[in-house]
C-alpha cells in the first residue's frame, strides 16, 4: 500500500495516543528516582525515596503478595473444576452458576464490598483479618479464571480425549489430572497471571474492606498520594509497576503464542 499523507497523519495520531499512555509512566518512574522533582533531573538520581517507601510501606507489599498468591491458589482449586463442570454440563443449574460467576465482573467493586461488610462486618475477627480482603479478591477474580479455562476447554474436543482415556480404564481423577488439566494448561496459566495482576492492583473493593492493619499496596498508594510528597508517591508507584510489569509481559508473551497455532 502506498504511504500517503493519511498514513503519516494516522501514525502521528497513534504515536500521540501512545505517548499519552506511556509518558506518565515514565514521568513517575523518573520522579521516583530524582532527588528533587521540582528542581528536575539535574538534582541527581537517588534511591532515597524507594528506601523510604520500603521502610514505611513494605508490610503492604508483603500483604499484597500474600493475598495475590492465596487468591490464585483458591481460584485454582475452585475455578478449574468449575470451568470443567460448566464445559461438560448444560443444565439450568450450570446456567445459573455461569450467571453468578459473571455478575461480579459487572457489579462495581464498591457494591460487592458493601454487601460483604453488611453480611460479615459483624464478625469482628473475620473483619479484622486479611482473609476478609481475600474473599473480596476471590469473588472479583474468579470469573476471569473460570472464563479463561472455559475458553480453552471449549476450543478443544476434550470429550473425545476423556472418552479415550476412560476406555483405557482411567478413573475420573486420573482423567481430570492427566487429561483435562494438561490440555487446558494455557488457559490455567493465563488465568493465573490475570488473577495475580488483578489482585495486586485491586483498589475499589479493597479500599472499603481494608482495616488500618490490613493495608494492601494499592491502598497504601492511595494513602501516599493523599499525604506524601510527589517523589515518595512516585517511588511507591515505581515499586508497584515493578511488581506487575513482569506479569503483564508474561501474559503478552502467552497471548501471542496460541494465535500462531490457531
Amino acid at each position, binding site marked *: 500500500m502506498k504511504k500517503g499523507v493519511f498514513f503519516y497523519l*494516522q501514525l502521528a495520531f497513534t504515536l500521540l*495516543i501512545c505517548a499519552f499512555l506511556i509518558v*506518565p509512566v515514565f514521568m513517575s518512574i523518573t520522579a521516583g528516582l530524582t532527588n528533587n522533582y521540582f528542581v528536575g533531573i539535574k538534582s541527581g538520581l537517588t534511591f532515597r525515596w524507594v528506601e523510604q517507601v520500603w521502610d514505611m510501606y513494605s508490610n503492604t507489599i508483603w500483604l499484597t503478595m500474600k493475598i495475590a498468591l492465596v487468591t490464585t491458589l483458591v481460584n485454582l482449586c475452585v475455578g478449574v473444576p468449575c470451568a470443567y463442570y460448566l464445559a461438560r454440563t448444560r443444565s439450568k443449574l450450570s446456567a445459573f452458576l455461569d450467571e453468578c460467576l459473571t455478575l461480579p465482573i459487572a457489579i462495581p467493586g464498591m457494591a460487592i464490598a*458493601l454487601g460483604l461488610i*453488611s453480611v460479615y462486618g459483624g464478625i469482628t475477627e473475620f473483619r479484622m483479618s486479611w482473609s476478609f480482603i481475600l474473599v473480596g479478591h476471590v469473588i472479583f477474580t474468579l470469573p476471569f479464571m473460570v472464563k479463561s479455562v472455559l475458553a480453552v476447554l471449549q476450543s478443544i474436543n476434550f470429550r473425545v480425549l476423556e472418552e479415550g482415556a476412560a476406555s483405557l480404564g482411567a478413573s475420573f481423577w486420573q482423567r481430570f489430572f492427566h487429561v483435562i488439566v494438561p490440555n487446558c494448561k494455557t488457559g490455567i496459566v493465563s488465568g493465573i497471571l490475570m488473577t495475580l495482576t488483578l489482585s495486586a492492583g485491586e*483498589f475499589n473493593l479493597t479500599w472499603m474492606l481494608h482495616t488500618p492493619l490490613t493495608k494492601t499496596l494499592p491502598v497504601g*498508594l492511595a494513602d501516599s498520594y493523599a499525604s506524601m510528597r510527589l517523589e515518595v508517591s512516585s517511588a511507591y508507584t515505581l515499586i508497584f509497576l515493578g511488581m506487575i510489569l513482569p506479569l503483564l509481559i508474561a501474559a503478552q508473551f502467552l497471548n501471542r503464542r496460541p494465535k500462531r497455532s490457531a
Partner: protein
Amino acid sequence: MIPALVVSLAFFLLPMAKLVWLSFAKQHGISYWYILTKPMYLSSLWSTFWLSTVVTLASLIIATIVGLFLTRHDFKGKSILVAMLSFPLVFPGVVIGFFVIMLAGRQGLLAELSLALTDERWTLAYSISGLFIGYLYFSIPRVVLTVMGAAEKLDDNLIEAGRSLGANRWQLLRDVTLPALTPGLISSGSICFATSMGAFGTAFTLATNLNVLPMTIYTEFTLNANFAMAAALSLILGFITWVCLTIARRQGGSSLGMGG
C-alpha cells in the same frame, strides 16, 4: 463445582441479597425516593452519566482511528506500540489518577508547558476534566484492542470490491468498514461506559469533592453512615453496569470490565 457454588453463594449472592434488603428495609425504600427527588443525588447520577457517555464516545473515535491504523499497516516497532497500548488495561484506578496528576496536576507536564508558553499554570487534574483524562486513559486500551480484533476479521475483499466500484476513502470507511466494526464498537463501548460509571479509584485520587456516583456512595457510607442510601445507590450503579455488560455480551464481546 460444589465449592464454586458455595463460594459464590456465600460471598456474592448473600451479600447482594442483603444489600437489596437493606436498601428497602429503611422506611420501605425511602432511599430510592430520595435519589429521585433530591438534587444532590440526581445531579451526581447525571454528571456521572454524561461524563461516561462523553468518555465512551471520545475513546470510540480515538480507538477506531488507532485500531484501524495498527491493523492495516505493518511497520517496525508496531508490536511495541501495541504492547504499550495494552499495558494500561490492568493499571488500577488510583495509579491512573496519579498519572493524571503527573500529566495535568500542579507540577504536571501540562502546567510546565503552559507556564513556558503563556506564563500561566494550567491545572486540569482536580476537576471534571481531570476525571475525563483519567477515564480516557483506561478506556482507550480496551476499545483499541477490541477494534483491532474486529478489524483483523474484516474481509479485505469487501474493501477491494468497494474500491473497484469507485468508492473513495470516506465512502469505504462509512459503508464498509464501520458497519463491519459496529458489533465490536457497541460491545467495547458499553464495557467502557460501565467501567467509567463505576470508576472509584481515579475519582478518589483526583478529588474527594467531585460529585460522581462512586464518590457519592463512598461519602454516604463513610461520612454520613447512611448504609441504606449507599446500598441503594450502589445497586442502581450495579444495575446500570450490568445492563451495559449484558449488551456487550449480546454483541459477542469479551468481558474486560475491570479496573477503574
